[in-house]
């Protein structure tokens, strides 16, 4: 059993599940109907991606693990998602900026992962990349619209940037299982992703007439199970039913 491959797959699943859950919180609360539908659609794509990765992780783990047990019966220290995915939504500026920063990372990540020697990871990446292309386009447009909009929208975008920026570095700092998987030609090289990411963020920020912050300190821990207090609340809500009524179905 390749524990690094399992951890790697779980991280991809957890990232998708947690940001998908956050986006789903907008369902019924979006600023206008069309954007409510947009973010709910994006949430659905993420839940689908999470299922594909959890199903694979469950097969690798064996021993009765299922996609549901991995999503609903693990506790905070077992989750490996990057911290930026679990932060509260904040306002629309914070949600769409987070989506842009994360989708840019995911876009280049999946682009590389398509070439993984692990055919299952490669297949899920190729499938997901098509969806992420739409997410990246949509979130880029929001960042530009808000940055280049009114004084109020720009102010909100800058406040969001201040809130989120310290959480971007973690995406590019490899955990031990990521380094191991890269060496086995199954994982991606995060330093290459980082270069692409910087370039894309710079391009979109220039159009939005905002600057990349100078500070470079990175808050980290998520990849190895050390989370902010927010993840516990997400899991409490998401896992309640399966914890209270184990095996419940409808």
């Amino acid at each position, binding site marked *: 059993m390749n524990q690094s491959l399992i951890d790697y797959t779980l991280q991809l699943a957890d990232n998708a599940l947690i940001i998908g859950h956050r986006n789903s919180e907008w369902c019924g609360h979006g600023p206008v109907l069309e*954007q409510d539908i947009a973010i709910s659609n994006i949430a659905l794509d993420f839940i689908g991606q999470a299922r594909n990765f959890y199903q694979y992780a469950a097969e690798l783990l064996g021993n009765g693990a299922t996609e549901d047990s991995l999503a609903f019966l693990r506790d905070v220290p077992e989750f490996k998602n990057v911290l930026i995915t679990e932060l509260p939504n904040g306002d629309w500026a914070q949600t769409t900026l987070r989506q842009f920063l994360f989708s840019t990372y995911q876009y280049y990540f999946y682009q590389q992962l398509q070439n993984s020697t692990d055919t299952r990871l490669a297949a899920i990446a190729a499938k997901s990349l098509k*969806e992420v292309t739409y997410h990246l386009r949509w979130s880029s447009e929001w960042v530009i619209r808000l940055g280049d909009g009114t004084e109020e929208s720009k102010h909100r975008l800058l406040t969001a940037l201040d809130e989120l920026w310290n959480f971007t570095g973690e995406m590019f700092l490899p955990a031990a299982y990521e380094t191991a998987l890269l060496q086995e030609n199954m994982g991606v090289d995060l330093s290459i992703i980082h270069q692409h990411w910087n370039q894309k963020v710079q391009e979109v920020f220039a159009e939005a007439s905002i600057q990349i912050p100078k500070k470079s300190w990175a808050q980290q821990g998520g990849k190895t199970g050390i989370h902010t207090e927010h993840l516990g609340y997400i899991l409490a809500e998401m896992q309640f039913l399966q914890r209270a009524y184990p095996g419940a179905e409808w």
Partner: protein
Amino acid sequence: MTIAIQHTSPEEKKIWNLLETVTDPEVPVLTILDLGIVRSVELAQLDNHQLKPIITITPTYSGCPAMDVISMNIRMALLQAGYQQMEIKQALSPAWTTDWMSEEAKNKLKAYGIAPPQYKQAVCTPEAFQDEEAIQCPQCNSWNTALVSQFGSTACKALYKCNDCKEPFDYFKCH
């Protein structure tokens, strides 16, 4: 023990004909064959000489909620035709694309009021505020239409409006 049966058998043709009767729950005018969701049909021979169909399907989008319903409907169609055992598998690779949709399917979509997918080109890139491809209004055939949102009533559709007849419409977006 199972033995693969030859690909072009009449039995296999029978399965394809049955699959032709299974429609997409969200776009009921299209069959799952029209959509290109069915990737392969195999038949295995069981010990009791009965045939067990093995159908491989692929999702349109990762989170498409219709997939479970489609699997169930395939199962129902096969059960009704007398098959007692069957297997429905999902494959992700190669990833589904609207290129697999038949011309006939595109005509059916349009008649149903949904603009059919264009060939993908520049549209499937992440560039912000890119020029939109012209999409024809399925109601009045005008090309004077505008994108409202890349995300529509289901994962596979975008929302447009027609500047001539003023009606909103769904566009089955390229993928």
